């Protein structure tokens, strides 16, 4: 069924763009054993949960489409697109699995090759390029929107392991707002050590589901029970609810999380202490910091 009549795209047909974290530093950290998640769930086992999940998405509805994007530390790239399969038997489960494994291996090699020489400079915990793979996923989703009035319902699923990279903050937020404008939910399944404040906000803002599974050896069950549900069916299910979202800001000067601070009126940069000059835009602040709402000041000034 290469080209299905368009009316078959009912509202439970999904396009799932899966972002797979292939951070070698994270997955290698499990070798030492201990409490690290990668010790209970090494990369190979992780794939044993994820690839059957992708296959089950494709089997749930013959019009469903799955796109897999790998998030590396030096590059991001498309791994698999079920829409590209030839008309003869790409439905074959074992063929899909071996194609994904092969392309992933190529990707990991490429990722390592690009990073040659800079490895020593990076410390122990290196973040993956989440902003890159999110941007790719959103470009792909826009292509689906352009393809016509009738298309599968797109959503993005982040399988994130490594910690957030503070330097990606602006880019990740840009991607989140763009997803929100196009009404594309971002689901997040965090298998790493800590919660991801980026993905908590991404799922909250775009109306997706955020989950950090407590038992990693049952990952497939979490994926199948929570993240396989299409957007239409979510209205009828009791899915995990967010347990508070961290909306506190981090200051530009120390990257410290604060709940009160000073904001530059020109560029909205956040500082934890009063400054003479804004380090982002160069504006100089001559007056004492003021609080809005003090009417006397505003009238005098005007």
């Amino acid at each position, binding site marked *: 069924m290469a080209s299905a009549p368009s009316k078959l795209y009912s509202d439970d047909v999904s396009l799932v763009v899966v972002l797979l974290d292939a951070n070698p530093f994270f997955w290698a950290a499990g070798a030492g054993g201990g409490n690290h998640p990668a010790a209970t769930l090494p990369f190979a086992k992780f794939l044993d949960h994820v690839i059957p999940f992708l296959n089950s998405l494709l089997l749930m509805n013959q019009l469903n489409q799955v796109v897999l994007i790998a998030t590396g530390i030096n590059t991001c*790239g498309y791994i698999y697109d079920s829409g590209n399969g030839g008309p003869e038997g790409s439905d074959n489960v074992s063929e899909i699995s071996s194609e994904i494994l092969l392309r992933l291996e190529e990707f990991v090699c490429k990722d390592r090759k690009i990073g040659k020489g800079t490895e020593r400079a990076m410390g122990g915990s290196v973040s993956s390029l989440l902003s890159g793979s999110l*941007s790719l996923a959103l470009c792909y989703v826009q292509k689906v929107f352009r393809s016509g*009035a009738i298309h599968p319902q797109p959503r993005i699923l982040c399988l994130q392991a490594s910690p957030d990279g503070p*330097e990606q903050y*602006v880019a990740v937020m840009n991607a989140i707002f763009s997803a929100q404008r196009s009404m594309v939910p971002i689901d997040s399944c965090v298998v790493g050590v800590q919660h991801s404040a980026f993905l908590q906000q991404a799922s909250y803002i775009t109306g997706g589901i955020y989950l950090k599974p407590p038992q990693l050896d049952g990952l497939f069950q979490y994926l199948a029970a929570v993240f396989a549900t299409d957007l*239409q069916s979510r209205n009828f299910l009791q899915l995990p609810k967010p347990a508070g979202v961290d909306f506190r800001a981090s200051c530009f000067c120390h990257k410290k999380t604060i709940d009160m601070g000073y904001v530059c009126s020109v560029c909205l940069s956040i500082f934890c202490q009063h400054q003479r000059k804004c380090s982002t835009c160069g504006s100089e602040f001559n007056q004492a910091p003021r609080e809005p709402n003090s009417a006397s000041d505003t009238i005098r000034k005007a």
Partner: protein
Amino acid sequence: MARGGNGGSGRKGDERTKNEEEDDEEDEENGGRELEAWERAYADERSWEDLQEDESGLLRPIDTKTIAHAQYRRRLLQRSVHGTSRIQKGLIRYLYVVIDLSRAASETDYHPSRMSVVAKCAGTFIREFFDQNPLSHVGLVTIKEGVSQCLTELGGCPDSQIKALMGKLECSGDASLQNALDLVHGYLSQVPSYGHREVLILYSALNTCDPGDIMETIKLCKKAKIRCSIVGLSAEIYICKHLCEETGGLYSVALDEPHFKELLLEYAPPPPAIAEYAIANLIKMGFPQRGAEGALSICSCHREAKIGGGYTCPRCKARVCELPLECRICGLTLVSSPHLARSYHHLFPVTPFNEVSHTLPIRLQQKFPQNCFGCQQSLISHGSKSNPHVSCPKCSQHFCLDCDIYIHESLHNCPGCESQRQQGT
């Protein structure tokens, strides 16, 4: 939420009900007669505007995709010329949108009338404005029968503004620029000194009927650092041009509805910050955390007990329902960090991409990638010639024209640059 694609049956059902309605209407005495098909084609679709003459004098449909891309590039390059010097933008704006509802707004050169086109576009504009300037404030003012009236006060909620506007769509009498400016001047003198004061007038009339000397009012506005901009719907008027020039605003006159919308939306991105217009300042703000679901508390804004959600003021611990706002109890400005982050793309815009020439010899073109880096769409059209596309000067990845527009207008990230390890991190 069936989205139109719910099989053939749903659509057929719709058609049937429509037919019944039409039958009913025929029984009635021609009351709310719908337009005939041939009338509709002319009135609604303006189908002649989709045609253009080619070199040999034949009528051809306009290649809308290339035109849209050319328009977008013009906008983008214009913006980057303005924005290269400094990353200072007026991000905290206090804007009054003044809508001319005088007799002239009932003219039907815009379909169905100037008034309804203005209202429709103003609604789109207000939404886009808040999307791009989340910490800003908008108020609405109307001009009707020679007087000016405040429709909504400066506020941060697009829905209530649009609702108020749609409820007040009647036009009559003369238009008075001076009355409108006087009213707005009074309101804008109150706003904090770090805010940018702006007036955007959507003016249908060809004259202004004023009680006094409008030149005095223009001087007052200039003194109060209020930028006045006007989008006209009829023809250029000297006094409008004078007002905009004096106060540092922009004046433009729309040709038709799409042009009007385009001109209007140009006011949505924040203007460059001009030091003399607004005084840079540090504002103390609080970043409340969202409460866990199911917690019971009394909110300070509605004075009601509410379960779940809500935010807690970090200074006085009062509960509020929505952000951004000023705490009712202690006056601290409360925002969430995403509110601020929504504006950061103005500070770090994506560099414009370069057009890749497709007139290069095929031998050179073969070195180009086959697919768009963003969406994987093929860049090769039939005959192995590469389609017009663009490439990022920083990461030298190639992108299709659709991705180019999406990246610069909505995403604000270059997927190629983001897929590279940044130096020095």
